[in-house]
């Protein structure tokens, strides 16, 4: 069971590592890269807490092995605010609309919503609910989260783009 070398760009920084094949991307980010903002809830793809962007696409990092993410570009929750600590539009909206209670699920929600609003800047209420369905909040704070997404969509459309956060667009497929 030989270890494998992996190289990925995480929040703009090149990260190299030598990992066992069974190490998930989530564990690699948390343990080897020290990026513990990516939270692990269920570890089998049900809760969405571990959502990160891989080449711009929101995915569950517990359902990807680190070796599968070799040569990709990753954005975790630590890469969403700008370098000077200014919150992104989505993060601000979560704060302003009480979109979090205990906060455990929040990184996954913020990442999912960031990708969702990039691809669908003017969503209907139904589309917002559907987009949120892949993330679970055990505090059941969904009303606040929903309000936050609607508000974030409005401010993004009104021209307050996310500040210099590292949110690469997905490659053309």
């Amino acid at each position: 069971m030989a270890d494998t070398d992996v190289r990925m760009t995480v929040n703009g920084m090149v990260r190299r590592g030598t990992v066992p094949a069974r190490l998930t991307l989530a564990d690699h980010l948390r343990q080897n890269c020290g990026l513990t903002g990516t939270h692990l809830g269920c570890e089998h793809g049900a809760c969405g807490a571990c959502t990160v962007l891989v080449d711009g696409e929101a995915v569950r990092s517990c359902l990807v092995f680190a070796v599968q993410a070799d040569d990709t570009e990753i954005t975790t929750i630590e890469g969403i605010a700008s370098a000077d600590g200014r919150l992104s539009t989505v993060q601000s909206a979560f704060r302003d609309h009480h979109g979090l209670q205990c906060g455990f699920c929040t990184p996954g929600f913020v990442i999912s919503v960031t990708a969702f609003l990039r691809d669908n800047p003017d969503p209907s209420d139904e589309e917002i609910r559907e987009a949120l369905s892949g993330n679970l909040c055990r505090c059941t704070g969904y009303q606040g989260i929903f309000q936050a997404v609607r508000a974030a969509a409005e401010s993004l459309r009104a021209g307050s783009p996310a500040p210099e956060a590292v949110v690469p667009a997905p490659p053309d497929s």
Partner: protein
Amino acid sequence: MKPAAFDYHAPVDLDEAVGLLGELGEDAKVIAGGQSLVPMLALRLAAVDHLVDLRRVGELRGIEVRDGALWIGAGMTQAAVERSAEVAEAVPLLARATRLIGHFQIRNRGTIGGSIAHADAAAEYPAVALALDAEFEACSPRGRRTLPAREFFTGWWSTALDPDEVLTGISFPRRAGRSGFAIEELARRHGDFAIAGAAVALELDDGERVRRCGIGLFGLGSSVQRAAAAEEALAGAVAADVRPDEIGRTAMTGLDSIPSDLHGPPEYRKRVGAAMVARAWTKALQEARNG
């Protein structure tokens, strides 16, 4: 680390991939998007000695017309299928089914070939492939072959693929004539596996008779299956004479391994399945008449 240890291989082309599978035998398993396999490994419902990752295999990508059918590479993500204007136009049933699969984060990784080769009895793509009489291309060290959808799904998570065979692409007939398509399912929450569902692909002739009607059922047995009795009853029937609830009930005859779980006993699933067939038939007919 949740899964048991395994060795990882990332072949760069199809020859290398099937060569590895031939060499490693039953101890190896193919991984594409991993959205079904990784949870099974994490929960240790499955264990492998070798994982052969198809992510670098370019031959598995593409959406194009081949021999009159729409060919979709097995490695295309569900998100790519969802975004494809060509799929929406030529195989609308597939596009509609895609939105019912998991959540967008799952569809960003999960592939069409993975869904079909994994062959979950409650999955949408296998039922759609059945309803449309799709054809599957596979490649092994012994060469390539084509398998019709109706001979592919053989039981719980099992298919006609050999252990050293890779599903490389799926060919769907393009919509033609006066046709209508619908997929209906009942799930407790959006993105959950369906309790029961049905995919209907209907084509009418100029006299309002059923020229062809394929019905794929999911969640109603050990694998997806055709509603043979209902298809037989519909063949050549005058569409206006068909009673949707009756066709729904007919579709539930001859099903012998309907699952029983916390969602309900087989009798309940049958009632749900009949209702889904009736709804899908009604919608497909409406589209065929208008189209």
